[in-house]
């Protein structure tokens, strides 16, 4: 093999092949991929018009010219991915045969000196053992396959297919990328907005960047929305020293105790966005100010008698001049959950050639599939009764899914199983047998050493008991 490679290197193509299979090139590509991928996480990946909102015009121009706003689709990043695949393919081809030989035709027999020279190697004299057959039995108990290579030599192995792990992994990565390319080439992605009661074949295709028509029609029968009940978080502190007395969490209508006063509060109303009309003309108003001034109306009771109502705001954002009702404590709001969406669902019907063929209620994480097109619940508009759907047709998905699974399998084979081999030389001694044992594993030397020591211990036990 080594000779072969040295000869190949002399020709130009031999040199090219050598570089394509080189591990140094592989490491360089991996590190380059890691480093260049960072760019797109720092620079916004947005359409040009949006880039101008995020960056100063000069910066935005430079970034767009360099293609940095769509970095992962730029020629150089795709080229880097191409090199990655090339290297992966070449490495896999180059190392396939040697690996296959290691699995199917391992070196089963070694001379005694070779065995003694191994890192894990021991010599034991076991008086009470009945020849090779018994040794075979002992090793088999550890899950090894044992073959007799000659009358004095034993070869044992397990987990040999683990060596194929990296090949499975590499092929899977290549296939996943092929699946991804298939999806890019022959699939499409888009967005559909559909109103309750409407039936339409139209969607906005992101692939074509224009409106496009489905081969069938889709109707929205009904749009459902569910909300979690509102919840309010208060912080009650002592007016004199600012010490926090309590942090009650209450829902609408629920009562809470105000510490130190014996008074109970009850939330009777709330505004997620409480605004007092700004008296200034529009041009002077600070329109960029955060719009959220949540407020909660609390009714206070002392021994069952209502003593008053006050609006409670977030600390420092009190919009009203209210006469304090409880002079000893300061109550402020620190969190308000008003309309937390629990679920939104759309009941969709598919009309093919004028007939209703399918009805399904979809929600996030549960899409509708029909003739290779999938509709995903993505947004909704409560007021307009409009449901927003993602539309996707991706013929590469089955391939991606299958090879993602084999990729996990391949990685697990590579790292959770190791190819363990044991070699034995057995000779008749004056009393019993002299055993020379050596072992090797392609992964996890520590784990293997533990097993090796256990096997050795079995033989040593025989020594003492015999």
């Amino acid at each position, binding site marked *: 093999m080594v000779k072969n490679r040295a000869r190949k290197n002399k020709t130009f193509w031999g040199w090219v092949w050598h570089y394509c299979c080189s*591990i140094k090139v*592989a*490491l360089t590509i*991996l*590190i380059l*991929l*890691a*480093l260049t*991928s*960072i760019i*797109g*996480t*720092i*620079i*916004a*990946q947005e359409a040009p018009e949006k880039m101008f*909102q*995020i*960056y*100063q015009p000069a*910066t935005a121009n430079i970034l767009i010219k360099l293609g940095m706003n769509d970095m*992962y689709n730029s020629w150089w990043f795709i080229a880097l991915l191409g090199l990655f695949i090339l290297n992966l393919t070449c490495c896999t081809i180059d190392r396939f045969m040697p690996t296959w030989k290691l699995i199917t035709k391992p070196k089963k027999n070694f001379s005694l000196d070779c065995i003694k020279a191994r890192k894990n190697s021991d010599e034991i004299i076991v008086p009470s053992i009945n020849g090779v057959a018994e040794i075979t039995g002992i090793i088999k108990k550890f899950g090894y396959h044992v073959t007799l290579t000659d009358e004095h030599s034993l070869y044992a192995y397990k987990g040999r297919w683990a060596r194929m792990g990296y090949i499975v992994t590499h092929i899977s990565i290549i296939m996943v990328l092929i699946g*991804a390319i298939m999806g890019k080439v022959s699939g499409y*992605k888009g967005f559909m907005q559909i109103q309750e009661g409407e039936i339409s074949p139209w969607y906005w295709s992101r692939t074509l960047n224009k409106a496009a028509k489905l081969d069938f029609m889709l109707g929205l029968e009904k749009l459902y929305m569910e909300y*979690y009940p509102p919840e309010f978080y208060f912080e009650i502190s002592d007016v004199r020293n600012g010490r926090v007395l309590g942090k009650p*969490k209450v829902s609408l209508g629920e009562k809470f105790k105000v510490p130190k006063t014996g008074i109970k509060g009850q939330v009777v109303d709330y505004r997620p966005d409480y605004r007092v009309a700004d008296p200034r003309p529009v041009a002077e108003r600070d329109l*960029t*100010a*955060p719009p959220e001034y949540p407020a909660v109306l609390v009714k206070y009771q002392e021994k069952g008698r209502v003593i008053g109502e006050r609006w409670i705001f977030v600390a420092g954002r009190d919009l009203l001049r209210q006469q304090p009702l409880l002079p000893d404590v300061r109550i402020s709001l620190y969190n308000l959950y008003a309309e*937390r*969406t*629990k*679920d*939104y669902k759309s009941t969709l019907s598919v009309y093919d050639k004028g007939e209703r063929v399918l009805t399904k209620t979809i*929600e*996030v*994480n*549960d*899409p509708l599939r029909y003739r290779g097109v*999938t509709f*995903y619940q*993505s947004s909704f508009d409560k007021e307009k009764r409009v449901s927003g759907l*993602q*539309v*996707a047709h*991706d013929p590469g*998905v089955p391939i*991606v*899914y299958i090879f*993602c699974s084999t*990729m*996990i399998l391949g*990685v*697990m084979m590579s*790292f*959770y199983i190791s190819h363990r081999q044991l070699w034995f030389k057995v000779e008749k001694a004056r009393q019993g047998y002299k055993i020379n044992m050596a072992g090797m594993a392609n*992964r*996890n030397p*520590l*784990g293997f050493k533990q097993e090796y020591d256990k096997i050795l211990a079995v033989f040593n036990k025989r020594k003492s008991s015999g």
Partner: protein
Amino acid sequence: MNNQLFYNIAFGCYFISALLYILFMVSGKEVLGKIATAIAVVGGVINTVGFILRWAEGGAGHAPFANLYESVTFFVYVTVAFYLYLDIRYDMKPVGAFVMPLAFLGMGYANLLDPNIEPLVPALQSNWLLAHVALCFVGYAAFAVSYGLVTMYLLKTPKKRDVEVSTNFSIINLAFFVATIAAFVAFIILSVMATAKYQVALPGLSPAAGDRAIIVGAWVVVFVGLYAIFSVARERIRDKLTSYFSVLNISFVVTTCFYLIIEGVAQKLSLGSQQTALYFTSPRFLIYKSLILLAILVLSMIISSWKREALAAKLPDLQQLDNINYIAIAFGFPFLTAGIISGAIWANEAWGTYWSWDPKETWSLITWFVYAAYLHARYMAGWKGVKTAYLAVYGFLSVIFTYFGVNLLLSGLHSYN
């Protein structure tokens, strides 16, 4: 509130266990190590009970992975479990002195967060949540333990006093520091200009904020990137760095991460996420905080050089550490792979796209690339010792950034945890 009591007791156990492990390291008394492990096991069991109670409280479909509190406590929990597994299997008590303090700090950090059980948003209502988060976090936990091992490895690596300072080294070194300082000064000038022009007090993402993010990002990437390349690629520089800066490097990474995380969460709670981005890129933040960091660095340098040799003598031998580190990474890598894939499948079931280069996805892929490089370097290219140890450090740095940095500094789909 029941579950929190359990989490707090576990927190206490981890604290005592961490203390005992450190005492064990210093004194070398076996008994202390055994007690420390026993207490860590007790803490782990109590943590399990708390976790189950919390799950029960939230409801069957609501695995406790929905907010930062839950995710940090789970991270700590899995890390402790993985460490205990390694210890029972390979007898690695000194590692506890590096892992348990991490667990204790993690729990302490979780205590600063909002522990309320929040209802699940529609996107998280999926069975994939459990699979995806559990797979990723087992991977992260293994990498955290690997980080503890690498720290020990670099601490133990003997100083090479005889390394000559070549002219080559000093030129690169000089260029590196000049570039860093120039970038920093340019950044301050630019942000002061931007502040004057756009008034940073404006809420929302002002045009300047994007520019600043690039400058800060570029600065950090250049700084860490150059450092990474030098430490891995040039032997002479690596020896130099290892002899004087290995501990410095590690304490820098750890302190920066913890600092950014704590500061980030505090700011995010009081300011909201967009304001946080501005806050992080403000010159004031960078000047004052880098001074604080510098102080911590100098302190850690003094502490680490003081009695370093005596400490190193108590650590397991280098070969052993290297082997166990490989076990940790080889254990975590398939989990990370499966975690990324489960996330991709979930995304395809929820949004119709399995890969969208969103920052969280991309950073998890970066982490995957770094650890893939580690495994190939070690097995195929025959890299050994300090070189691979540095790769593992950058791998964990990438894990930390994937986990916290993306949420605090970058925006994307994963903004809820």
